[in-house]
Structure formats: structure tokens, C-alpha cells
């Protein structure tokens, strides 16, 4: 326990971050509500990227400058841990929605269970999962679904192995074996990148050939909601790992001081675990 606390100096980044986030929100809002505002949205998104660069660069410099003490390190760790917990709850809401639809809503619409009388409204509807036919046929379900044992299985293997390779890289860092660290980090990134490419291929195929779109009833809705937000998180995770790679090449981190790397790794493992849930409940069952 230190006898003197470290209090970081003020910074202009937070307020700039607020500004660009506000710009993004206004841009997105007016684009969706009134059909204009794209320039604001784009400026906001670019701004967010720049702010993240600037803010993290300052933090990295301070950290490299040895300004942070053990207590600060613990604060960062806990902050990251709780942040990931909040992300878990974000996905929990989506999984909850998926389970509710599958366990309650669809059977009710089909005439089973406590609210089965509802079927009076939808006499021709039969529930199934994946849902190929919607209660109101004018909405229409997909014509086919994705076979989990093809691309999704490959993607599962990719992500799981990327978690393993990242752990190898982490151990290398702890052993201060830089070449090994770089190697395995690159492998991880490649795996993540291939995952995203495959996901992209799958999306195009779903959208154009299978009729599996956002508009394709609740199956399409949940499919894209879950895989889409997961994909966004993989992208963020990959960018974080890319930054870690660049920092490793610049000689940052030491065998026992490399919290940023660990935070990125936690995040990556989290994204990986979410995928397992997705693979099981969106694709397989």
C-alpha cells in the first residue's frame, strides 16, 4: 500500500470524446428520424477513432513514464472487469429475448401453452425453430437456414483456437519471449480476421441467397442481432489486439507489467465465450 496516492492530471480528451459521441448520436438520430445527417454521423465516427487514439496514446505514455502505481493498476483492472460484466449483461438481454421468443412467444402463437388461445388470430401458423414461416405470411421467413456444420463450425474452431493462441502469446510475454509473443499474437489476429471474413461471406450468402434478412421475421431479427453485435465486438477486439501488436513491436510491456495486453486478452476471451453461446443457441439448437 503506497503512502502517497497518484492522481492523474486533467486531460482534454474526455470532453472531446463527449463532443464526438454527441455528434455521432445527433447524426445517427437525424439520419434515422429524418433521413439526413450522414455527414455528422461520419464525422462523429471518425472523431471517436481519433479520440481513442489520442486518449490511449496519452495513457500509454503516462504508463510508460512509470507514473502509475500499483493502485492505479488495480483500478484499471477492476474498471475493465466491470466493463466486461456490463457487456455480458448487454448480450444477456439479447439471449434472454431469444429464449423468450423460442420458449414462450412462438408456442403461444401456435396454439400451445398458457396463451395458446392466441392461435385464433393466426390459424395457419405453425411454430418451428428456425422460424421459416411467420404468423403473418406477408412478412415471410427465410427460404433456408445456415447449416451450422459448415461455415459456423469453422468459425467456432477459429475463435476457440484464437483464444488458445492468445493465451500462448500471453505466456510468451510473461516469459519475456518477444519473438514467440509476436508470432502467436499475429496468428491470433489472423484467426480473428479470417473469422470476420467468413462471417461476412455468410452474411452475404444469407442475405442474397437464403432470404435471411433483418426483415425475415423473428428468426432473421434475432440472428442478425446476436451475430451482428458479436461481430462488432470481434472487430473491436481485433483492433485492440492489433494495437497490442504494434506496441509489442515498439518494445512496450514487460514480463510483469502489461495490463493493457491482459485487458485486450480478457475482452477477446469474453467475445469467444459469447460466440460459443451463439453457436449453440443461434445455429445448432
Amino acid at each position, binding site marked *: *500500500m503506497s*503512502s*502517497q*496516492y497518484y*492522481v*492523474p*492530471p*486533467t*486531460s*482534454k480528451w*474526455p*470532453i472531446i*470524446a*463527449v463532443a464526438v*459521441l*454527441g455528434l455521432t*448520436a*445527433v447524426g*445517427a*438520430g*437525424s439520419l*434515422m*428520424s*429524418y433521413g439526413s445527417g450522414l455527414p455528422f454521423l461520419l464525422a462523429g465516427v471518425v472523431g471517436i477513432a481519433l479520440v481513442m487514439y489520442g486518449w490511449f496514446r496519452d495513457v500509454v505514455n503516462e504508463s510508460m513514464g512509470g507514473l502509475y502505481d500499483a*493502485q492505479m493498476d*488495480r*483500478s484499471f483492472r*477492476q*474498471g475493465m472487469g*466491470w*466493463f466486461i460484466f*456490463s457487456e455480458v*449483461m*448487454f448480450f*444477456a*438481454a*439479447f439471449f*434472454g*429475448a431469444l429464449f*423468450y*421468443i423460442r420458449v414462450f*412467444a*412462438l408456442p*403461444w402463437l401456435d396454439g400451445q*401453452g*398458457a396463451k395458446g388461445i*392466441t392461435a385464433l*388470430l393466426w390459424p395457419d401458423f405453425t411454430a418451428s425453430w428456425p422460424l421459416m414461416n*411467420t*404468423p*403473418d405470411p406477408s*412478412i415471410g*421467413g427465410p427460404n433456408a437456414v445456415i447449416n451450422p456444420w459448415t461455415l459456423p463450425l469453422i468459425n467456432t474452431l477459429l475463435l476457440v483456437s484464437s483464444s488458445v493462441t492468445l493465451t500462448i502469446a500471453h505466456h510468451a510475454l510473461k516469459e519475456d519471449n518477444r519473438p514467440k509473443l509476436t508470432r502467436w499474437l499475429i496468428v491470433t489476429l489472423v484467426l480473428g480476421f479470417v473469422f470476420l471474413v467468413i462471417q461476412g461471406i455468410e452474411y452475404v450468402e444469407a442475405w442474397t441467397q437464403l432470404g435471411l434478412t*433483418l*426483415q425475415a*421475421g*423473428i428468426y*432473421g*431479427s434475432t440472428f442478425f*442481432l446476436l451475430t451482428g453485435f458479436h461481430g462488432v465486438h470481434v472487430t473491436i477486439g481485433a483492433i485492440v489486439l492489433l494495437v497490442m501488436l504494434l506496441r509489442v513491436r515498439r518494445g512496450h510491456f514487460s514480463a510483469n507489467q502489461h495490463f493493457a495486453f491482459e485487458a485486450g486478452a480478457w475482452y477477446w476471451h469474453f467475445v469467444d465465450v459469447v460466440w460459443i453461446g451463439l453457436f449453440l443457441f443461434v445455429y445448432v439448437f
Partner: protein
Amino acid sequence: MASESTHAVLQPNVGTAEHGHHPAQMPTGIMRWVLTTNHKEIGSLYLLFSLLMLFVGGSMALVIRAELFQPGLQYVQPEFFNQMTTMHGLIMVFGAIMPAFVGLANWMIPMQIGAPDMALPRLNNFSFWLLPVAFGILLSTLLMEGGGPNFGWTFYAPLSTTYAPPSTSFFIMSIHLAGISSILGAINIIATILNLRTPGMRLMDMSLFVWTWLITAFLLIAVMPVLAGVVTMMLLDINFGTSFFDAAGGGDPVLFQHLFWFFGHPEVYIMILPAFGIVSLIVPTFARKRLFGYASMVYATASIALLSFVVWAHHMFTVGLPLTAELFFMYSTMLIAVPTGVKVFNWIATLFRGSISFEVPMLFALGFIVMFTIGGLSGVMLAIVPADFQYHDTYFVVAHFHYVLVPGALFAILAGAYYWMPKWTGHYADETLGRWHFWLSVIGVNLTFFPMHFSGLAGMPRRIPDYALQFADFNMISSIGGFLFGFSQLIFVWVLVKAIRGGEKAPAKAWEGAEGLEWTVPCPAPIHTFETPPKFVPEVDSPSRH
């Protein structure tokens, strides 16, 4: 210690004359507030923001009360009335009550645990400044084509999706920003509490305000993302043709409600647990007696928080849940009365055989205990499903939640403000004005909300701009009370301004019976406290020493 005006955060002349103590790069003028990473300054910003929002949201309530003064449509049209109801609820919940508690947390938690600041000061600045942006966007929707949100603060789909005004996407964006602010603020508070306590202070040595905030922050991190998730699904339904809340595509409007209330119920405890914490400090101070049942207070708070995750559907008893679900949610909801009762009984046991004086903070705290309990008891009535079929969506519910929120949460915030005002400004609040503020508030609040029990029971639905003639008398009383209560709050502004500018000076330990590290630093607290961890000696028989 420094001369009285030097480092008080609320002093208007700080930043001009004496800069000696600040780090060299400390900006001045407006930029000082924009860039600040100091927990006291950010705390003040939160508190001032929340006061402003109280008046904005309160003015909307007064529009509602003016329209409901008599039957018929007089001042506003139904569509605007609905916007007022919606915005009033949203602004009070997310703009007034929550930021007020975060402001108090910012100010007091570091001082109570002997920390120099929050754990992540820049994040703290970020969290605060997101709020004005979020509420700026929210308020601007009122001026947009088609008007602002008009679907209630609970924004049930499909009224808030297919049938919503075009500005709804802005509404969703502002909820996202406010949500990010809350989550990051909560992370900061948890990290501060778990990580920055002064050596020797164990969890079971912390003040109850710190404890309740620790648990509240956990609730926030657990449920704000669910709110973010559900508004995201709304956004997709509105703009991208998904079917989450539309049976035609296989979705269900009730799914929206499950997700919303999974957030919404813990949310109401987010607005009350810190209030419990504040009251648990003030009652012992002015009873000059240690808090009765410290440990059971902590366990009760934790139980309330855990139970709050499994009671959400008590807001949905009429949506047609299966019988077993109704029973489960009825029983689990009723159970919350037990730990809450423990808290009430502990406060009363603290008063019992104390040496009680009635300064303004104590008056508000006592008002809290009584009127929160009234609201809690009507809550238990609401939990009884067959009876709730008659109460639901009537003014009985409106009476219930205003009792727990206004003389509940808001009174606790005011109690805290009077209690800590010497620490913030260096001066005691004006006792006479404070008493006027209290008594007028008590009368006003009961005049406003007590008759709502009657009109609700007799059958007046909520969220209506006009009503059957039989409810006229009760509504007239409520409206008079509402204006009385609202204008009484201006006294508070007066008190605050007076205390900032001068008044009776307070010593470090402003209240004779007060305990805790915050009372070891001078009044007003210097801008930087506890640059080195203070010595902390737990009381000999504190729970952690058993």
C-alpha cells in the same frame, strides 16, 4: 488550514486569486469546469445539473397538474400532455434523481473512505459531460416535427415503435448516452470503493452511504446494459424492419416489457438504496447514538438488490402472464418488504433512547422514514395480484411511486444536501429557511400525492389529460399541492445560494454527533483532500472486529 474562501469548490471566486495549491496546469474560467477531473468539482457539476433538471422536470409536472386542475381540456392538447408526462418521468428519473445521487457519491465517497479522488478521474469527467448532451438531445425532441416522446417513460412497444413520432430515434440515442454515462460512473464508483479505501478500513468499516452505493453501482452495471439492449431492439424495429415486438413476424410486444422491467425494477432501487445510505448517516448523527444493526443494514441492502432481479413482472400483472408466473412474482415482490422493514426498524431502534435534536437534515430524514414507509406499504398492496388488477395503471400507482420517490428519494437527497452543505460551502444552511422549506414541502407533497390514493382507488386511470367528474375534487387538491410543493423548492435554491455566499461558519466536525472521515477535514473541504491516506481506526466493536 487555508482561509475560508480559498479552496471551496462551490465558491464563485475560486480560481481567481489564490492558485497556490492547484497543479500548475489547472485551467481557469469555464475551462476549469469543462476539464476538471476533481471529484468535488464533478460532484458539484452533477448536483447543479440535477437541480436544474428537477426544475425542468418539475415544471412539466406543473403543466400536468395545471391541465388536471379541472375536468375538460384547458391548456394543452392530449398529444402535448402525453409528451409532458413522458418527459417528466424520464427527466426526473434519469436527469434529476440519479445524477443527484451520483453527485453525492462523487463528493462524499472519496472523503468517507479517505481517498484523494475517484479511481478513474478522467472517466469521471467524461461520464458527467455526457449527461448535458444526452438531455440536450432529449429536450430538443420537443421541438422536432411530430413532437417528442409521447409513450410514457416506460415506452411500451409498439406505441414506441410503429406508432411513435419520428423523433424517437433521437430519444433512443439520448438514452444510450445517459446509459453509457451511468455505467461508466458506476464502474468508477465500484473501483473507488474497492480499491482506494484508506489502509485499515475494511468493507464492514465503511459508512452505509458507501455500502449502499457499492451495491447500487453493481445494480447499475447489471441493468443499464439491458436497457441499452432493449432500446437497440426498438431502434431496429423502427428503422430496419425487424420483428422483435411484432407478433406478425413472430415477436411479442410483451417481450419489450420483460426486458424493460428487468432494467426498470432494479432501477427504482437504484433510486432508493443511496437514499437509505444517507438516512443511515443522518439519523445516528442527530440521535447521537450509533446506528442500530449496522451489519443487518448491509445484509438487508444486499438482499433488496438481489431480490430486485426476480420481481420485475410485478409491473406486468395484467399482461396475461401464466398463473404460476403471477404467483412467483407476487411472492418474490412481497418478500422485499422484509429486508426493507429491517431497515426501517433499525432506524427507529437508533432513535430509541437517543438524544435527539431536529436540525433540518434530521427533519428531512425523519420525513423520509415516515413517507417512504407509506409508499412502501402501498407497494406491498400493489404486489397482491388480484388487488393490483384494480390498482394497476391508476393514480393509486402514481401515489405509490411518488411517495417513494419524492418524499423518499428526493427528501433523502435534500437531507444529504443540508447535512453536507457545511462541508461543501463552509457554512451552515440557513436554519429558518430550511425549516420553512421542510414544512412547506411536507405539506405540499402530501397534499399532492395523498389524494391520488383515493382517486386511484375510485377508478381514475393514469396518463389521461381529462377525467370523469367524480375525480374533480381530488385533482384540484393535488394540483394546489403540486404548485405549493414546486414553488417551495425555490427556497432550497435560496438556501444554497445563501450558504455559498456566506453564513454561519462550520468547524471541521460540523455536527456534534457526526462520525466519519469526511468530518476530519475542514469545512469547506479543500479542493484536494487526503493526498496521503489518513489514519483510520475502526471502532473497537465494529462488526469487522468480531
